[in-house]
């Protein structure tokens, strides 16, 4: 079997205790929630902390409620819960659908939204066993100093591959973080960085406590388009989240589009307000948005699937996202 390295498994009951453990073993510890990302990664020798601090038993990380105009979701809530909770389904149907499309039922039953937000970046040269990586020559994300994706590259471009962050970003979500020394809040759009080795602003001993999402206006329509090879199990080859606020006459009040599955950071497609804000949502506008997304999003060889095709799919699935929010095929729009 694939062996894990020896470690101590801590099961704190309170947040303070968890944060204290992470501080005490800073540099040699990691939080573990569902472990559905961390466990395979440890089996690949990608992380070998001597201390694992389990989050599932921490009371404070379990909550789903409406509070002060926001929907608050505790970091340790499972993806199954996020996908099926009536409140989330009513208020944030796009998020529920993004969560529903993750992996497969058993992973969703155990994996958490906090873990999803903190999911390690992925790359075909990285998510491999120690033997495999050694045989190829270690890459710069782990144990080595070359990049196989961008030849001669010195910055890791492993792909952000989590399904809920793009949707959360379009919804204007904020994450609450804490260390033993204090707490802070970061808008999700500022949470991710372009460094594939560690693609968030989170400190290693810092925890995501909860995700807060402003309750959207009833006019907000969302769509999450996940491109994957199989209809289950697979990570996104592309994840496209769209949120548009439109009135009955299809006048666009706001628009936000985020694409994941490219580099280390989900890309917020820029300049859309300029072309779409205040306009009526027409096939021409949609085409223009699709073209922009296509121009701004360049898939890399960090996943095994043909980049030209993935590139072209950006435009196709942006259109499909619009079709979904309009509830009809484009031709009829």
């Amino acid at each position, binding site marked *: 079997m694939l062996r894990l390295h020896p470690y101590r498994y801590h099961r704190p009951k309170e947040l303070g205790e968890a944060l204290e453990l992470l501080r005490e073993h800073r540099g040699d510890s990691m939080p573990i929630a569902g472990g559905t990302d961390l466990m395979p990664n440890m089996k690949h020798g990608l992380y070998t902390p001597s201390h694992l601090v389990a989050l599932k038993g921490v009371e404070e990380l379990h909550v789903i409620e409406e509070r002060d105009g926001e929907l608050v979701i505790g970091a340790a809530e499972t993806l199954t819960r996020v996908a099926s909770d009536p409140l989330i389904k009513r208020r944030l149907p796009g998020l529920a659908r993004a969560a529903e499309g993750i992996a497969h039922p058993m992973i969703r039953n155990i994996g958490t939204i906090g873990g999803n937000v903190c999911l390690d970046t992925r790359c075909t040269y990285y998510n491999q*066993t120690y033997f*495999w990586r050694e045989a190829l020559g270690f890459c710069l994300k782990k144990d080595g100093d070359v990049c196989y994706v961008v030849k001669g590259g010195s910055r890791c471009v492993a792909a952000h591959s989590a399904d809920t962050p793009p949707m959360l970003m379009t919804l204007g979500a904020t994450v609450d973080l804490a260390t033993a020394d204090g707490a802070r809040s970061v808008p999700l759009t500022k949470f991710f960085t372009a460094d594939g080795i560690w693609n968030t602003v989170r400190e290693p001993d810092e925890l995501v406590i909860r995700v807060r999402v402003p309750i959207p206006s009833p006019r907000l329509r969302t769509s999450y388009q996940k491109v994957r090879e199989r209809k289950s199990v697979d990570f996104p080859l592309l994840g496209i989240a769209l949120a548009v606020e439109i009135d009955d006459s299809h006048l666009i009040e706001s628009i936000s589009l985020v694409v994941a599955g490219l580099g280390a950071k989900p890309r917020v497609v820029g300049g859309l307000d300029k072309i779409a804000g205040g306009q009526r949502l027409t096939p021409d506008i949609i085409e223009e948005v699709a073209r922009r997304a296509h121009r701004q999003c360049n898939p890399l060889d960090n996943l*095994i*699937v043909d980049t030209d095709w993935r590139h072209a799919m950006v435009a196709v699935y942006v259109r499909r996202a619009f079709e979904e929010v309009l509830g009809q095929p484009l031709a009829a729009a």
Partner: protein
Amino acid sequence: MKLEDFRGRQADSAASEEELREALEREFQVIGRRLRRTDGMSKSTGRTLYADDITLPGMLHAKILRSPHAHALIKSIDASAALELRGVHAVVTGADMPVPYGIIPWTRDEYPLCVDKVRYIGDGVAAVAAIDEDTANRALDSIEVEYEVLPHFLDPEEALERSDTPIHEPHKPGQNGNISKKVHLEFEDVEKGLADSDVVIEGEYYFEGTTHTPIEPHCAIGYFDPSGKLTVWSATQVPHYLHRELARVLELDVAKVRVIQPPVGGAFGGKSEPFDLEFCVAKLAMITARPVKILYTREEVFYAHRGRHPMLMHYKTGADRHGRIKAVDATTIIDGGAYSSFGLVTTYYSGQLITAPYQMESYRFDSTRVYTNKPCCGPKRGHGSVQPRFAIEVQLDKIAEALDIDPIELRRRNFIGTNTRTINELRITSNGFLQCLEEVERASAWKSKHRKLDYGRGVGVAGSCYISGTNYPIYPNDMPQSAVQLQVDRSGRVAVFAGASEIGQGSDSMLAYIVAEELGVPLDYIRILSADTDLTPVDLGAYSSRVTFMCGNACIDAARKIKKLVCEAVAEAWNCKAKSIMLAGGWAFKAEDTAQKMPISEAFNLAEAKFGALGATGSYNTPKDIHGTYRGGTIGSSPAFSFTAHVAEVDVDPETGFVEIHKIWIAHDCGRALNPLLVEGQMEGSVYMGAAEAIMEEHIFKETGLHNAPSLLDYKIPTSLDTPEMQSIIVESIDPEGPYGAKEAGEGPLHPSIPAIACAIYDAVGVRLDRLPFSPPRVWAAIRERGRQEEAGELSPWKSPPISVPLPATGD
């Protein structure tokens, strides 16, 4: 115990009077019914013990050190540090087992662990036995291997040219060491056939490699008892060959080696020859005097491979204007990977097995298997013939189109017939292919669909044939290919000792149905003891779809011997003719008067009293005059051929290239279906596997020779949401030599999936995909290319009314 005691017990499962009267009307009591499997309940309750479920007292765990280089000389191995680690019991290297092995006696080119050279990334170099896997892994890390790296070849065409760097030493000086096998055969005059043709279609097809991915990883346990007897438990589908090779390589007396094959968790050809782990557990057990287990990681399963060979196939096919095939000219380059495996046979099969179900006036094939520095290819479900079947069936579709003949009609016109010989002289007996075509044509409503569905949806058809076992064993001998021994207990319980390997296909159940049919005992009175070389007579193994045909016949042979004795004994007691006695439903009874009956155990007891202990052996050997009279003509011959036809209906998303297989109709001629439920299971499993090869599976490598992604996440096999809807239609052309007329069902039904899907994609969107797999990027690129040609006026729009394909934005 008195006889009466048995009576009460058997009454539970014994047939009622009414059922016995019904039984008289029926040809068979058990055969042909949708019965439970003998192992179904134990599998469904998690009780079945597979190899890794076995733990022996004091058992050690071993791990194999694998080469990180695709091609290199081993200069030295230093394992001294490993041996010093606490908990390490032994280390072995190639030098400890320097006898080469190989499933085909003429091409033994592998060592249990590499001796002086590694030939692919993952090749085994050393093995360590330790108290646990963690310790064994630590020991592997401390073994120092010095390599001299050689140029490596991943592309067979490059390897062919580089005879200066042979992956294997040439057999004779001057030969190219990178050629594993070359076969060139011609039947009738192909040039003339092509010249006389009204239409000649030429095409190049590429079949990407795929692998078996049984869900159970390979696992073996070795135990060497103090008296000098070696026992190996292994998840193998060929215990007999493993038995022989273990003895030969480890230089042991075969009689002192025992191989036990526990139920196997899927194999599909991936466990049909010896592997490094079996030799290593055996050797390490001999050295340490402790039981030793090796369980492959999933990654190692991908390195062990032996999957479908990549093939580059160049086909020229000629036909007259009625669509009758006048000539087939095939040239094939086969990428063999690092070793021979079954490659000699694969090379023949790539040409020998496509000469039915269609008549051809002339045929020539030239196949070359080439070594490359990749995991070794071998037999995967439909060994050697799935690839050329893709080529030839698509060729036929292209001919049909060129001649404006319906592709099903074209196939009908070329039907080879029953009781005939193929152009390469293979004997064909029963043949239900025409009915297969008719069934799928009707069930799929073909006539209302082909070229008539809206743009984006299409149907395709393909046919095929496959062997029911190879006519000749892998090592030449005249002994039976299969044998069965029956032992009857006084309770009425019948034990079946058979060498056949249960790998999920249902061979144990098949034997039980036969015994139940012949001896009239209820199914739960039958115990199947299979695949243990100390207990069971030889069966050559679960490969080439041979088990039902061969072991089934052997089992009938044994059972009828006992039946004869039992009927005689009962007839004597009842003072009637033996002919009048029937055994069925747990009883022996008189055909003329069902009220005259006795429990089957009582009948067995009468027979035992009269003849002594009740037991019998039965065997089967193949007919010897049914093959080609030329060199190599024995390869491909089989006592019977199965036939299949598929219609696939697909939806192609022209914007994305995703192919959704809407439904596949499968008609398969398996001869008599001994249990239709299990036949359907084989058909559906086959089609699922073929469809997956068509649209997603790809066993590929990085430039260094490293496997692209050896995991079940990245090597895509379909989930329950991806599997197509299927409709199985069993066609029963009763075979004159099969057990009750049965032929094979485990491999044949896979073949047409791939070409049928290819042709359905063409029907849907007008693009020919001659390269596998038909993944979204490929389909998408082909559609765009066609779009460009349409725009340029080189092609007219596909299907009318023309629908313009929205092309994705290409950016600014």
